[in-house]
Structure formats: structure tokens, C-alpha cells
């Protein structure tokens, strides 16, 4: 980002926060509500600054770094009695045109039973982080690697040989392959927390066991509003809360991820459904001033036969541990340790991880100036075993205002 753009972002951030502050602080963080509370409007504005990321460790696509972004979310919930709600969220990043992030209808058929159906652009059921991705819910400015880091795999372009994967290790922010889309484009994360999928989901139960399942257009890596391959994804999460404060959950997902643009370029025999398979475990324990979280995400992507290896699937495993401790009213320290590893490919000339493993450590502090005005500062260390740049450290600051 050029200095002029940074200055513009800072001005915009300041102006937006100042404009929102009187309304937000007057209500002490309460949303605007109309029609007796049937219509509720909330917002979250966050600005994050850090040094340039020439290694693209924190990019969520080629243009957006998670550590250099101003984001404004506007949330709307309209309830029609106890059975129906309409929920939407629009989001603007760096003052770009707002985009719908969520837009769905919620149906709660029986008030006495824990059973809900949601349809539209819906929150993901897989894992935990994607639903608490909001800056106010994230103790640190950074994101877990499994939900943000761009691997070298694309949904609309495929490699034709294992050596192409070797050559592109660690360059997932902008990658190109010979099969499918001819342009350069960003790779996919294991789970895309920046975009929600479209479909229908069902939740059954609440305490101590909750089951959610979803049928969606895209996959975890490649959420879609419109179908681009004729396939659907089935995902589910089973959560168990044995005692108050402890939640353990297992997730799974399976769906066709490769776009028609790429499969049409394959020989007919290789066009079989190419799916993303995923499994996850997440845990949270909270007590007193502590919150401890752990999350593991495994993802396997089917690939067509490629030269140099008999492998038909590329695997990745993301592991994350996170802790937050309040040291004083409104003041906390937090840390996250994160690793992303990839399966090996053996060719005649070499044996290698198909993408470069990444390790991230992030520690930081947060201070609530008001109930709904939070500032954070963090140090983030990244190491990548491959690519053009192997390591980068960042100092990041973030301000979050919500109501």
C-alpha cells in the first residue's frame, strides 16, 4: 500500500470512528433497534495497521492483507415473532463498495424445541473460528493460518505436473497453472473465513449436545453463491458441552471444489468429481479470567492425475492453540501458536511438501477504552519453509468499535 493510500485509510478510519463514536458510546454498545426491537441494526468498524507484508503471510487474497485493512460491517436482524428472522450483513474493506457477507432467513419452527433451519448465505457450520472471525471476538489482529493462509492450490486452475507444485511452493498469493484459468490468481486457504457459503443448514439440540449440518454450493476452501461445478458440499459439526465452560466439537465436510473451467480442460477420463474432504476438531475452555482454545483442521483436495506422482490427493493440516488472560478490568494478554503442514510428494528427482509449511506465533495485548471500543497491539512472527521470503515479523495495531 502506497503512503498516500495509507494516509487515506487513516483519515477514513479516524472519520468513521469519530462519526460512530457518539452514537455508539451513548448506547454503551447497544444496537439501534426499531419497531419494539423487531429490527436491530449493529455495526463493527475495525482498523488494522502493520508494516508491509512483502511475503504475503497475512493476505486473504492478492489485494487484501488482514493486518493492513479497514473494515466496516453493518449487521441487520429483522425478527417476525419467535419463529422467523431475516439476517444480513454487508461489509466494506478499505472503503470499497460494500458486499453482502451474510444474507439468510432463520426459521425456528417450535419455540419449545432446539431446532433451527437457516437458508441463504449462511454462517459455516465447520469448526469454530469462521463464526468468531469478527475483530471484537478475536483477541489478536491476526487470523489462524488454516482460515487465512493462501495455499498454492486453486479451484479454477490445476497443475499438470508435480514439479509445478514444487516450483510454486510458498507463493499462494498469486499462482498460475496450465489447466483451467490462464490468469494469475490467489490460492485457497483450508477454510475461507472471509466469505460465507450459500445453502441451507439445520441445527438440532443445544445443551449438552448440538448437531449442525449444511448443504452448500461451494466448499470450505471455495465458498460460492452461484454453483460453478454442479456439485454440492455436505458439512456437519457435532458439539458436546460436558460442563459449563468446556466445549468439544468434531466437524467434517465433503464437496466438489474444482470449477467447471478447470475440469473442462481435463481429459474426459480425469474429470471425475474432484472433492475437498475436511475434518476438524475444536475445543474451548473458559473459566475465570482465562479462555483457552484449540483447533485442528485437516483438508484433502482430490487432484487429477498429474505427471511425476501417483498421488491423487493433496493434504494439509492446520493446528492452532490460543489463550487469552485478563490481567485487569478491560486489559488482557493473548497468544496464539499456529502451524500449517502439507503432505509430501515423491517424484523421480525429489521428495517435498507440496506447499511450504508455515509456522506463526502471535502475542499481544488488548485494552477496552469503553465497553465497545477496544484497542489491540500484537507482535507476529512468521516462518515459512520455502518460497521467496522465508520469514517476516510484524508489529500490528488494531482499533475496534462496535454496537
Amino acid at each position, binding site marked *: 500500500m502506497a503512503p498516500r493510500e495509507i494516509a487515506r485509510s487513516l483519515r477514513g478510519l479516524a472519520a468513521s470512528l469519530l462519526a460512530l463514536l457518539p452514537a455508539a458510546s451513548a448506547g*454503551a*454498545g*447497544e*444496537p439501534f*433497534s426499531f419497531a*419494539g*426491537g423487531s429490527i*436491530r*441494526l*449493529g455495526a463493527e468498524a475495525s482498523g488494522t495497521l502493520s508494516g508491509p507484508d512483502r511475503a504475503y503471510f497475512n493476505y486473504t487474497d492478492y489485494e487484501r492483507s488482514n493486518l493492513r485493512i479497514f473494515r466496516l460491517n453493518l*449487521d*441487520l*436482524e429483522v425478527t417476525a415473532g*419467535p419463529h422467523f*428472522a431475516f*439476517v*444480513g*450483513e454487508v461489509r466494506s474493506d478499505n472503503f470499497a463498495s460494500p458486499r453482502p*457477507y*451474510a444474507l439468510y432467513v*432463520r426459521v*425456528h419452527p417450535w*419455540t419449545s424445541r*432446539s431446532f*433451527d433451519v*437457516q437458508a441463504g448465505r449462511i*454462517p459455516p*457450520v465447520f469448526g469454530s473460528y469462521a*463464526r*468468531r*472471525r*469478527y475483530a471484537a471476538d478475536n483477541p489478536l489482529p491476526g487470523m489462524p493460518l488454516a482460515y487465512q493462509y493462501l495455499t498454492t492450490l486453486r479451484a479454477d486452475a490445476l497443475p499438470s505436473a508435480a514439479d509445478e507444485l514444487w516450483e510454486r511452493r510458498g507463493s499462494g498469493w498469486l499462482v498460475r497453472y496450465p489447466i483451467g484459468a490462464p490468469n494469475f490468481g490467489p490460492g485457497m486457504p483450508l477454510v475461507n473465513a472471509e466469505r460465507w457459503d450459500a445453502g441451507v*443448514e439445520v*441445527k438440532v439440540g*443445544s*445443551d449438552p449436545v448440538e448437531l*449442525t449440518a449444511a448443504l452448500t454450493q461451494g466448499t470450505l476452501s471455495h465458498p460460492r453463491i452461484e454453483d460453478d461445478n454442479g456439485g454440492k458440499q455436505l458439512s456437519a459439526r457435532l458439539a458436546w458441552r460436558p*460442563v*459449563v*465452560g468446556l466445549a468439544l466439537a468434531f466437524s467434517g465436510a465433503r464437496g466438489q471444489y474444482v470449477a467447471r473451467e478447470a475440469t473442462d480442460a481435463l481429459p474426459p477420463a480425469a474429470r471425475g468429481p474432484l472433492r475437498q474432504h475436511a475434518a476438524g476438531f475444536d475445543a474451548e475452555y*473458559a*473459566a*475465570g*479470567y482465562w*479462555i483457552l482454545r484449540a483447533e485442528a483442521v485437516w483438508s484433502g483436495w482430490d487432484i487429477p492425475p498429474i505427471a511425476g506422482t501417483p498421488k491423487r490427493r493433496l493434504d494439509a493440516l492446520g493446528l492452532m492453540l490460543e489463550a487469552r488472560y*485478563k490481567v*485487569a*478490568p*478491560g486489559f488482557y494478554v493473548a497468544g496464539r501458536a499456529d502451524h500449517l503442514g502439507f503432505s509430501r510428494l515423491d517424484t523421480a528427482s525429489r521428495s517435498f511438501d507440496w506447499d511450504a509449511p508455515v509456522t506463526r506465533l502471535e502475542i499481544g495485548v488488548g485494552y*477496552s477504552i*469503553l*465497553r465497545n471500543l477496544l484497542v489491540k497491539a500484537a507482535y507476529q512472527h512468521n516462518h515459512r519453509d520455502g518460497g521467496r521470503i522465508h520469514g517476516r515479523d510484524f508489529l500490528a495495531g488494531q482499533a475496534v468499535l*462496535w*454496537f
Partner: protein
Amino acid sequence: MLLGPLAVAGPQAGAGRGPMGSIRGRVDVKREPPPIEPRPAVASLGMPALRAVPDRKRSVVYLATAPQGAFEDAERPRAVLDQRNQAFVPYVLAIRAGTTVEFPNRDRTYHNVFSFSKAKRFDLGRYAGGLSRSVNFDEPGVVRVFCEIHSHMSAFILVFAHRYFATTDAEGRYRIDEVPPGTYTVVAWNDGEARETRTVRIPESGGPVELDFVIE
């Protein structure tokens, strides 16, 4: 108006020095404050649980100028602010400085009571149903209390330097007893603000004085 004027001493206080009076009446809150709503639950996988709606019409009536000697009470009382059905009960709690307030969690979920108010900044951490934590409020002022987990949960604790205050009941009635003869400024406070201020005189002969408030 905040609670600062509570430190101002007025007429001489003291039981046994003569007949005492009382101030009683009704606070009629005409305004209809909307229920405190949670933030839109965009990332929720289902309809949020039903919750209790706090009574935002409850008011506090207090003397802005308290009698001399009213601040010498060495009593260390206790009070309770419940967390029940995802609401603080009562929504408004009026106490004397020095009071210890218990915050029992009567829900099945975690709650995390905190306040960033100038008069008292505290955070009780997360604790489960059936457990309680307490805080001593030693400074007069208005303390806004929240739950970190449930954005719609909030309450007010009004901490007074004297005992000349009363919280209205469900019908809006209040009564402040044992008020020495003299002229006082009386304030009706509702939902975060001192809404109306009146002057009242307790005669030398004591007895009840009626004082009603209407808050539009």
C-alpha cells in the same frame, strides 16, 4: 445530573433530635424505553435463547442535598444483583457506599460481570450457574454493569454517600423515611439520567410530604 451533589450537607440530621419526616410519592414514567436488545446474531446457527426483559421504568429518588451527619453511618450492608434468564435483576440497584454486592449466576450458562465506570472498574471473570462473586462499592457514583458474554445484559448500580434514597416499586411508588426537618433538593433518576429535580420542605413538626414526578 450525576451523584456528586450527594456529598453536600444540608440540614442537621440525627435521630432523637425531634420529629422526623418522610418523602413519598410516585414516579410516573411516561416514556417507553425500548427493551435492551442483543446485537444482531449474524454468526449464530440458530435462534437465540429467550431472555427476560428488564424493567427500565424502575427509578431512584434521592436527596441531592442530604442532612448533615448523614454520611457518618458506619454500617456495611450487603445487596444482591441477580443474573437470571440472561438479565440482571433488578435493572437498577441503589446502595450506600461501602455496600458489598453479590452477583449470583442463576442461569445454566456462564456470565461475566464487569464495569468500566469511573466510580468502580471491575471484572469478575466467567463463572458458572450456582456460583456467586461479590464487589465492594466504596465510592459514590453511577456504575453501569454489563456481561461480557451477553451483549444485551446491563444494569445500573447507584452508589450513594448517604441513606436518603429509594427505588420505586412496580407501580412507581417510593418512600424515603427518617428525613430531618429542612428544605431539600430531590432528584428522580431513571434509566441512566437524573430526569427531574424538585425542592421539598419537611416541616419542623415532621410527617409525610407527598412528592410526585412525571418523566416524559
